[in-house]
């Protein structure tokens, strides 16, 4: 699937308090969370962001708390994917689990400018900066991550696992 959108550019260590301040965590409603996405450090983000846009950042994106509300808020803003040089560990898992596409690509993150138009192919990991005429390739997902994504996220993957176990149990009873 190819996605086209504009760049919202950030630097290093964008933390989860910046993505969604804790004072709004008395709800887990994605629409409510989206209203406050990035507001502590980039007050204009909510007004600027359009469905299909990309968040691009340098290193350690999503550091800090384990709040899944962070990728939920980004996704609910309509952001199509986050592209960063590196991601904090828990954010990476959370984004995969809730179905927010994320791509690791150092040069794409370094060379993008705010407002650039990118075309991203999630399947191949190809990132084209249309504004600058540059093409990049993101780190491919680890194989297991790809399985999770293809299964439709961790919940669907686990459902299948549980069903298979159930199956195995009832088979062994029959024997």
């Amino acid at each position, binding site marked *: 699937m190819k996605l086209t959108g504009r760049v919202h550019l950030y630097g290093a*260590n964008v*933390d989860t*308090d*910046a993505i969604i*301040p*804790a*004072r709004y*965590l*008395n*709800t*887990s409603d994605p629409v409510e969370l989206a209203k406050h996405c990035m*507001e*502590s*450090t980039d007050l204009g983000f909510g007004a600027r962001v359009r469905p299909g846009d990309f968040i691009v950042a340098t*290193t*350690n994106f999503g*550091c*800090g*708390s*384990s*709040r*899944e*509300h962070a990728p*939920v808020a980004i996704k609910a803003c309509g952001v199509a994917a986050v592209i960063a040089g*590196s991601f*904090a*560990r*828990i954010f990476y*898992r*959370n984004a995969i*689990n*809730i179905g927010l596409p994320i791509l690791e690509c150092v040069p794409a993150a370094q060379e993008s400018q705010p407002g650039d138009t990118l075309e991203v192919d999630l399947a191949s990991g190809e990132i084209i900066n249309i504004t600058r005429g540059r093409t990049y390739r993101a780190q491919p997902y*680890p194989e*297991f991550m790809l399985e999770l994504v293809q299964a439709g*996220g*961790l*919940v669907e993957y*686990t*459902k299948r*696992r*549980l069903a298979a176990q159930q199956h195995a149990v009832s088979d062994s009873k029959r024997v």
Partner: protein
Amino acid sequence: MVMTLAEKILAAHCNQRHVAPGQLVNVPVDIVLANDITAPLAIKEFRRLGVDRVFDPTRVVLVADHFAPAKDIPSAEQIKMMRDFARAHSTLFYDGGDGIEHVLLPEQGLVVPGDVVIGADSHTCTYGALGAFATGMGSTDIACAMATGDIWMRVPPSIKLVYRGKLRHWVGGKDLILHTIGRIGVDGALYAAMEFTGEAIETLSMEGRFTMANMAIEAGAKAGLFAVDRTALAYVKGRAKRAYVIHSPDADARYETVEDFDAAAIEPQVSLPHLPSNSVPVSQARGMPIDQVVIGSCTNGRLEDLEVAAKLMGGRRVDSKIRCIVIPGSRQVYLQAMEKGLLRTFVEAGAAVSTPTCGPCLGGYMGVLAEGERCLSTTNRNFVGRMGSPKSEVCLAGPAVAAASAVLGRIASPEELEA
């Protein structure tokens, strides 16, 4: 094959003789944890799984501590959802005032050496102090683990941190970890397991070790571990609710990197806004004006932390320009602090003493900052807007610097009160 402490624990859980960094493993877990912010999302995802029970109700722990006792109606609804779920599934549940999760679980003997613990809270890594492999995850991972009792993870590479020499007076676990993050950076241990060792660690109290393991996440680490020794065994004795296994790293285990510290040269530290890695010796931060001091949290809300603070605040007054909030980390800490007269010391000094809660650490309540205010706090994060207004500031320090600063009304070294 030689293994690090993290590798030993994971291998034992996976029934494998050996695991190596990068290997993908499905790990049975001993405890699955969530709090009042992360549990509601986990419960929603758990329901989507279509299962009717948790894998083991005695191993699922839900703690209302972040916005509890409830700070507003939406928070009360979240806590109620959690309580109802806990009752329906007979899981363990701790309500507002019982304690902060990472103070509570070790204290109650729910986490024991050799465990694998996952929690929907990034500071779950605290339990590494007990020789457990403990790591933070999001609500969906936790929801699935509540159903299956296991979790996939990649075996992390290990980083060894060696602290040589003896600690100076007033220097504790908080100072060591702030100094460490200052050196390696907030992503200096990204995806890795930190293994803390050395002479200064051997003589460090359990409280100091919990503090250090707690902040492993602030260096991006997946876990922060200590080998079990006499200090850890003495702590576990009389608390452990289950049998435990002691794993030790092999002497010639392979580490991605080894960081060496001259612990005797480390001064009390202060991390300046807005990253934990902005740590400097307190002598360089001395004199900075502050409006509030917070002493507490999953990082520094244990009895020893309050004892250190009380030693400096006893017979003195909190400076009239600032407010000081003291939050014991659990009901047991609260009671012990009461019996030892520490709470009286704090109240007489002019501090506000609160029931256990995460409260101000994440800008929830009980000490939220206004625009332009600066807080010196024994908590773990000083990100923009962490404790309130996006135009407020947080500096991090240990309880000694916090108490001295409360008395002197500005960032201060504890030594200034001894002069």
